[in-house]
């Protein structure tokens, strides 16, 4: 009889304990394109966030006050489609009761969800990299926004610093070949005045997303005899543009503010200069920075691969990885997991030294150090660390 009572009480206690544990979970939503032609950023962001969450949970979670919490990732694939993203965001906020959302990285997706997200201002925090978020930071009813990527323009903007570097290379004329989509148009708006101010002529051609053969625009642009080609913003197009431009000998000098070194390295013998903005030159950092070395090893182990995506990782994975840790630190500092305003305040006061050195300015926009990589003919790379803090 006694044994039965002990068993019942034990089971009840276990049930109560499990119920309490079930409640102590902080859900992190994520709305990113994980498939489709613009999936690189979202896919890498998903991988970085998942890895960080797994690490934190395996260590038993994190403490806020007396309570220990675990993290749960609720990740949705927007496929780059604003309508799908809107439905997914509604699901995250209304059904899943998520208070922290990572993403989106795509401007068209952000534009599609912005009105709904703004209606829910104060109820959640959105940490996205989309360029269009920049214009909304600091505006009334947009307190839910934090932008997780460096801004291009302005004195400490990475784009401005990149164009300054380009000018030092003697560039007088540059041809910009970008996707005709939401970000492509924003990029033209951002970079036209920067180039104009630097005294560099800018020819612009926008191409239809999904294009694979660039013979026509490359021939058209090359006729203007520019010094550098400033091509698209994702590797999905960069591989083809750089290959076709070098194969035909139309361009040998490239300038990039988004995308990876991969396309340049593939064609290193046909390229004179390949200048790229990269938040972190992983190949180099892995040798010098213990945290980066640990991250690469953890990534390989978690995803059961020997191929670390060196050229893709800096685009997002490592930043999302850091952002999860930053968010946890902010919750601990704020002493709450529910009060998003306090957590945001704590985030803005952080100066995080993870894989990257990240802080947010007063508007909620990330400022982090980055590398200007300059690949010369044959593949020799020089890296210049730029600290815009």
């Amino acid at each position, binding site marked *: 009889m006694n044994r039965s009572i002990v068993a019942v009480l034990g089971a009840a206690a276990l049930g109560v304990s499990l119920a309490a544990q079930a409640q102590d979970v902080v859900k992190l939503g994520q709305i990113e394109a994980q*498939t489709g032609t613009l999936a690189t950023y979202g896919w890498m962001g998903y991988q970085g966030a998942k890895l960080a969450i797994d690490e934190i949970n395996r260590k038993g979670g994190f403490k806020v006050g007396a309570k220990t919490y675990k993290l749960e990732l609720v990740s949705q694939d927007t496929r780059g489609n604003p309508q799908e993203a809107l439905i997914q965001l509604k699901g995250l906020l209304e059904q899943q009761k998520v208070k922290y959302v990572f993403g989106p990285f795509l401007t068209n997706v952000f534009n599609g969800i912005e009105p709904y997200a703004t209606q829910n201002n104060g109820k959640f925090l959105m940490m996205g990299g989309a360029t269009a978020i920049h214009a909304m930071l600091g505006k009334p009813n947009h307190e839910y926004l934090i932008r997780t990527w460096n801004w291009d323009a302005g004195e400490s903007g990475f784009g401005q610093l990149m164009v300054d570097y380009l000018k030092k290379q003697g560039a007088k004329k540059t041809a910009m070949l970008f996707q*005709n989509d939401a970000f492509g148009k924003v990029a033209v708006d951002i970079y036209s005045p920067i180039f104009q101010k630097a005294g560099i002529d800018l020819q612009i051609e926008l*191409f239809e997303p999904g294009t*694979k053969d660039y*013979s*026509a625009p490359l021939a*058209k642009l090359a006729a203007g005899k520019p010094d550098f080609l400033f091509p698209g913003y994702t*590797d999905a197009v960069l*591989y083809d543009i750089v290959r076709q431009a070098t194969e035909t*000998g139309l361009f040998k000098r490239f300038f990039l503010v988004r995308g990876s070194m991969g396309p340049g390295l593939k064609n290193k013998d046909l390229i004179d200069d390949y200048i790229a903005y990269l938040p972190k030159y992983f190949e180099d950092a892995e040798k010098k920075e213990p945290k980066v070395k640990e991250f690469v090893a953890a990534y390989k182990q978690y995803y059961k691969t020997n191929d670390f995506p060196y050229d893709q990782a800096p685009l997002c994975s490592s930043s999302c990885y850091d952002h999860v840790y930053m968010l946890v630190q902010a919750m601990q500092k704020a002493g709450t997991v529910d009060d998003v305003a306090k957590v945001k305040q704590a985030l803005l006061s952080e100066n995080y030294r993870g894989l990257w050195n990240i802080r947010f300015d007063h508007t909620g926009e990330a400022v982090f150090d980055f590398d200007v990589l300059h690949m010369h003919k044959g593949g020799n790379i020089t890296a210049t660390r730029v600290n815009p803090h």
Partner: protein
Amino acid sequence: MTQLIAGQLLNGAIVGTLYGIVALGVTLTFGITGIVNFALGVFMMFGAYAAWYFSDTLGLPYPLAVLAAVAVTAAAGLVADQALFRFTRNNLVNGLLVSLGLIAVLEACALLVFTSTPKELHRVLPGIVMVAGLVLPKMKLVVFALLLVVIFATYAALTRTWTGRAAYAYAQNPEAAALMGVATSRLQTGVVVYSCGLAGLGGALYASLYSLEPTLGSLFILKAIEAAILAGIGSVTGALLGGVILGVTEGVGSIYLPLAFRDAYGLVFLVVILLFKPAGLFAGRR
């Protein structure tokens, strides 16, 4: 400017043959099975990744990798036919739904296996050919020649062999063909497998020119269907010409008109042609 236009005429024709090879699959499948197989785009993607895998990962010489990719894609087509398409024969809507479902499944599988990071085959045949100031990569010319050979060989096989004539007979009157001893079920399966093999060949050759990503087939299947409609469904040489016309329209149109709407030029052209020739440019011809 003349050079730029001539260059785009030639380049458009080359790109057009890639549209044409998939369009040929579309037109054959529709003629024999009565379905518009949108999944031929993902079979093209399958062939492209297979060629990349056989060549860059397993180290097979590129020509062997292409043959292996075609064989694997045709085998995948056979599996798809026996598991799915044979239940949708002559049912346009069901066939369309199955092919759309197959696109979603195969693209998701490709993303899981190959990720969204573009894959690029090593340069199979580097270098360019310069003719009268026109610059063309050697590999593009090889792809062009190979596709022309395959399309004309298909045409010859359809017009000069018993099986080919049986296929035409079946397309015109299935009951009469069956009564004359044509093994209709085997013929339909054969055409689906052959069309998938053609798409696989297109993909394997595509891999030598462009980077690969899981969604590459979606763009091509739309162009291929556009080319097949432009030519008139059922015409083999028309599929090739439809593709070439589309490629040239896009290439030359991009010089004078904003590049951002390149896909629209082909569609506008298609609408204009259909206004005057509703059955397509080469309808009724083989």
